[in-house]
C-alpha cells in the first residue's frame, strides 16, 4: 500500500524508511515539533522574515516566494484568518506530496503550525485529493494524535496560541489543485477558480483572509526554522534554494522519488539516479516538471533543475515530476494523452479553455489517425496561443504549454504523421 521511500534522501525524507516516523512518538524521537516550539517563541514578523530570507519557493508548481505570500496576510485583526494546505496533488507525473502525507504527516502538521503562527491563522484546512484515501487516513491519525498531545487545539504546545486543523477530501477534479478552485471546493462548490481580484489573502476560504500552501512547501519550513535561512540556502541554487523531491516516471530503469537539491542537472536525475532508459534505448524527450510543463528534447538534459535555468529552455520546474520518454515514443500520441487530460479536466468556465482544450485534443487525435493536414500544425499552435494568458486561472496555459513544447521540439513527428497519413511509430506506447 505505502510508497517505497525515496532512493536518494536529504533533510525532508531522511527518516522515511522508518515506519515510526509517521507516528507522533517516532516523529518526536527524531526532533519533531522542536522547530514549532522555537517558532512559537519567535514573533510572526521575524518568522516571515526568516522564510523570506531562506528564499523558499512554493513547491506546488508556481514557485512563488512562500515568505512573501505569508506577508500578504492582513495583520489588522478583525476577521478570522485561515491557512489552507493544498494536498490535492494531481499533476500527472507528480507523487511527492503523497509520500510526505504517508510517511511524514507530522512534518506536514509542524510546517502548518509554524505557518499558522506566522500568519495569525486560527484554523487550517487540509484539502486532500479524494483518491488519496490512505494518505488522508495517515494524516487524520496524525491530527488525532496531535490533538491528544496538546499540539493542536486551544493551547498549541502549551502556548496561548490556538489552532485547529480540518482535513477535507476532494472528489476527483484536477482543477481543485488551483488555489482558488480549491477554495471553492472547500466551500462545497464546483471547483471553478475564482476571478481575481479579490485575492485569497483578502478574500479566501469562506470569505476570510487565507493563504494556500502546498504540502511539500510546509515540510521545508520546520527545517528552515530549526537550521536557519543560511543553512537552507546551502542547498540548491542561489535563486532556487533547498531540495525538492523529484518524482521520476516513464521509460527509466528505476522510476521513483529522489530528494535532490534544486539545480541538479536533469541528466543526472535521469541517467544516474533513475539509471537511464531500459532495453538499451535512448531518451527522446523528458517532461521536467509534471505534465503541464513543456517537454525538453534529449539534447537539452544538461539543464539544471531550477526555474531560472528551465525558463531559458522555455519550460519550468512545476512540481518536479520528471517524465522520461524513450526513442520509440510517438510524440503525437503523447500529445493525445496530454490534450485529452486537459480537455477532461477543464472546469469549463472560460471560453478559451473550455473550447480550446477540446479542439486541441480533436486535432491531435486526427493527426494520430493519419487524417491531419499540414495546416493542422499551425492551427495547433494558433489555438494554444489563443488560450495562453487569457483566462481566469493558469489551467489554460498549462494546457497550451505542453502542446507548444511538443511542436517546438518534435514538429517532425507531427509532419511525418501528416506525410505518411499514419502513425510512423509502430513501437510506441499503446494509445
Amino acid at each position, binding site marked *: 500500500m505505502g510508497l517505497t521511500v525515496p532512493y536518494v534522501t536529504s533533510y525532508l525524507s531522511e527518516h522515511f524508511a522508518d515506519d515510526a516516523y509517521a507516528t507522533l512518538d517516532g516523529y518526536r524521537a527524531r526532533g519533531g515539533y522542536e522547530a514549532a516550539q522555537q517558532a512559537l517563541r519567535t514573533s510572526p514578523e521575524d518568522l516571515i522574515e526568516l522564510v523570506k530570507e531562506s528564499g523558499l519557493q512554493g513547491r506546488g508548481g508556481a514557485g512563488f516566494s512562500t515568505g512573501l505570500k505569508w506577508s500578504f496576510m492582513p495583520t489588522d485583526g478583525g476577521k478570522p484568518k485561515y491557512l489552507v494546505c493544498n494536498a490535492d496533488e494531481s499533476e500527472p507525473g507528480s507523487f511527492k506530496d503523497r509520500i510526505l502525507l504517508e510517511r511524514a504527516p507530522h512534518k506536514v502538521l509542524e510546517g502548518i503550525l509554524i505557518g499558522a503562527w506566522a500568519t495569525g491563522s486560527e484554523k487550517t484546512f487540509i484539502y486532500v485529493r479524494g483518491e488519496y484515501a490512505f494518505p488522508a487516513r495517515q494524516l487524520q491519525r496524525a491530527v488525532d494524535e496531535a490533538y491528544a498531545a496538546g499540539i493542536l487545539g486551544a493551547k498549541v504546545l502549551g502556548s496561548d496560541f490556538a489552532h485547529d486543523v480540518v482535513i477535507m477530501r476532494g472528489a476527483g477534479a484536477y482543477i481543485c489543485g488551483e488555489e482558488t478552485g480549491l477554495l471553492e471546493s472547500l466551500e462545497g462548490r464546483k471547483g471553478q477558480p475564482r476571478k481575481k481580484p479579490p485575492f485569497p489573502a483578502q478574500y479566501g476560504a469562506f470569505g476570510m483572509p487565507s493563504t494556500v500552501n502546498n504540502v511539500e512547501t510546509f515540510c521545508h519550513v520546520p527545517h528552515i526554522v530549526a537550521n536557519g535561512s543560511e543553512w537552507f540556502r546551502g542547498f540548491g541554487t542561489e535563486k532556487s534554494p533547498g531540495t525538492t523531491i523529484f518524482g521520476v516516471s516513464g521509460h527509466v530503469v528505476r522510476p521513483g522519488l529522489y530528494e535532490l537539491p534544486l539545480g541538479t542537472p536533469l541528466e543526472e536525475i535521469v541517467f544516474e539516479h533513475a539509471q537511464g532508459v531500459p532495453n538499451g534505448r535512448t531518451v527522446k524527450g523528458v517532461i521536467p516538471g509534471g505534465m503541464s510543463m513543456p517537454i525538453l528534447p534529449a539534447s537539452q538534459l544538461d539543464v539544471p533543475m531550477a526555474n531560472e535555468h528551465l525558463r531559458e529552455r522555455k519550460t519550468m520546474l512545476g512540481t518536479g515530476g520528471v517524465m522520461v520518454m524513450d526513442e520509440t515514443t510517438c510524440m503525437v500520441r503523447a500529445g493525445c494523452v496530454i490534450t485529452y487530460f486537459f480537455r477532461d479536466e477543464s472546469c469549463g468556465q472560460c*471560453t*478559451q479553455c473550455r473550447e480550446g482544450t477540446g479542439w486541441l485534443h480533436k486535432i491531435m487525435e486526427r493527426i494520430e489517425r493519419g487524417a491531419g493536414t499540414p495546416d493542422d500544425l499551425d492551427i495547433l499552435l494558433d489555438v494554444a496561443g489563443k488560450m495562453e494568458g487569457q483566462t481566469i486561472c493558469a489551467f489554460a496555459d498549462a494546457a497550451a504549454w505542453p502542446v507548444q513544447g511538443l511542436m517546438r521540439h518534435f514538429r517532425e513527428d507531427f509532419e511525418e504523421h501528416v506525410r505518411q497519413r499514419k502513425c510512423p511509430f509502430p513501437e510506441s506506447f499503446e494509445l
Partner: protein
Amino acid sequence: MASIRVDDHELEVEEGRTLLQALDDAGLLMNGVDVPHYCWHPKLAIDGSCRLCQVEIEGFPKLQIACNTPVKDGMVVRTQTEAVRRAREGVMELLLINHPLDCPICDQAGECKLQDYAFEYGVGQSRTREPRRALKKSVDLGPTIVFDQERCILCRRCVRFCREVPKTGELGVFNRGDQSVIETFPGSELDNPYSMNVADICPVGALTTKDFRFKIRVWFLEDVPGVCTGCAAGCNVWLGTANNKVYRYVPRRNDAVNETWICDHGRMTYQQIGSADRIAHPALRGEDGILRAASLDDALAEAAARLRRVLDATGPGALGVVASPHASNEDLAVLRSLVDALAVEGAALAVRQGDSDEILVQAEKAANATGARALGFGDPAALLERLRGGALEALLVLGHDLLDPALLGEGDALDGVGSVILLDSHHSPLERAAHVVLPTRHAAEKFGTLTNHAGRVQRVRPAVEPAWAAWSEGELLARLGAALGLPDFDGKFDPRAVSRALGERAPAFDGVDWDSVGDEGLPLKQGGA
C-alpha cells in the same frame, strides 16, 4: 470619484465600479466604446468567464477583463488595440467551433450577439474540421421556454438570472469542460413568473420563448417604446410591431422602474392589444333590449341625451362617474373637466386587484391608477354604496374594473341603473348593463402618459392603429362634453396639449408632461397622489 481614460474618452466614474459598469453608467458601452461581452449583464452578478471583454490597461502586462477590473484613479484603458482585437478574434473563433451553423432556421437570427460579434470581431472563416458537439435540440424547459443546447455558449446568464432575480434557481451547469451543459434538475421545469426573461438575456438562439418562436423574423419588426399595462409597475417595453400588429413585448431597460426585466404575465399582455374580444364599434341598446352597432355620432348623441335627462330631472347627484385606471392621464384630465363641468361629486376609481411580488408585480392590475388618483378620482366605496342603494340613475363608467370581486363582482347591481354609458376597450359582462357603448383605444394605440405605482409618469405613443373603430377616452369625452353643450368643450382632443396643461389641474404634474418625461419617464412632483 475616479478619473479614467478609455480610448479618447475622459471619464469621471464612481469608485468601486468595474470598468464595464463604469462604461455602462456613462452610457458609453457599445455606444461610443465598443467592448463586446457575453457573460456580463448589467443586472446580474459578474461571471468573468466569456473573456470577450478583455482590454488593455496601462501597467498590466496582460489583457484584463473589463467586467471585473475595478476602476482606479488615473487608469488608462485601450479597447481597440491589436492585442485586444486578437483576443476577441480568439474568443469568437473558439465559441464558433461548436456552435451550429443553423442561422437560417434560428429564431435569434437578426438579434444574435454571436452573429453580430462574429461579423464585427470574428475571423470571417472557419478552420475547424472537427464535427460539432451534438447535444439536445428543442428541449422543452417548461411552460414558456424552449432550449437548444447546441446553440448555448455557456455564458450562464440564464443560470444567474434564475438564482438572483426570481430566486427560483431552476437551471444549473452540469458536467465540466467542453461537456458542460445547462439543464434543470431531473423532473423539474423552468417555471417561474419571470421565466421568459432568460430568452431576452440569452445572447444567442439557445433560449427562445414558445410564444414568439417562429412567428416572424426579427428584422421585420419595428420596435416602438412603450409601457406594459399588465399592472401598476409600468415596466418599460419595446413593442415589436409589423403589419400593424404587435408581435411581442420585450423589456426596455429603465433602471428606475424595471431594470431590464418584465414579468411573464405582463409580457403576455401584448396579446390584449389585437385580441378578438376588443370592442370594435360603438353600440346602442335598442327598445328590444339588444345592443346594436351604431355610428359614433348617434352613440354620443344618445349618451348626451341620457345624461342630460338625468341631470335635468334629478341633478348631478344622480349621476355616478367611474374612472378607468387604464386610461391615460390626459384622458382622465378630460374626464376630470367633464365631471367638474357637470358638478358631479364623488367620481371614483375602480381598480382590479391581484397578486403582487417583491420584484416587479403590483397588486393593482392597471397601468395608471396612481395617475387617476392624482387627478382626484378616489376610493369607490361611497359611490358603490349609492349605487347599491338605488341613488344613481345614470352611470358614466370607463373600463370594467368595477367587476373586481371586491367591488361589484358580476355587476348585477348595475341592472337597476337607468342609463349606463360605458367607455371600454374589451368586451366584458359590464356591457349587459350598458345602454351606450363607446370603444376605446389601448395604451399601445395612442399618445398619452401613464403614472406607475411609484408615481413615475411615463409616456406611450401609437405603435399600431386599430383596424376597427376606437377612440381614446379623452377624445370620446371631449366630444361628449361638446354634445352636452358644455362650455370649454369644443369636441377636440390634443393629448400632448392636454399633457402640457396637466399641471394646472394637478400640481403634481407641473412640468411633467408627454414631451418632458422622455422615454424613461419622470416622477410626479412630491411623489404623486
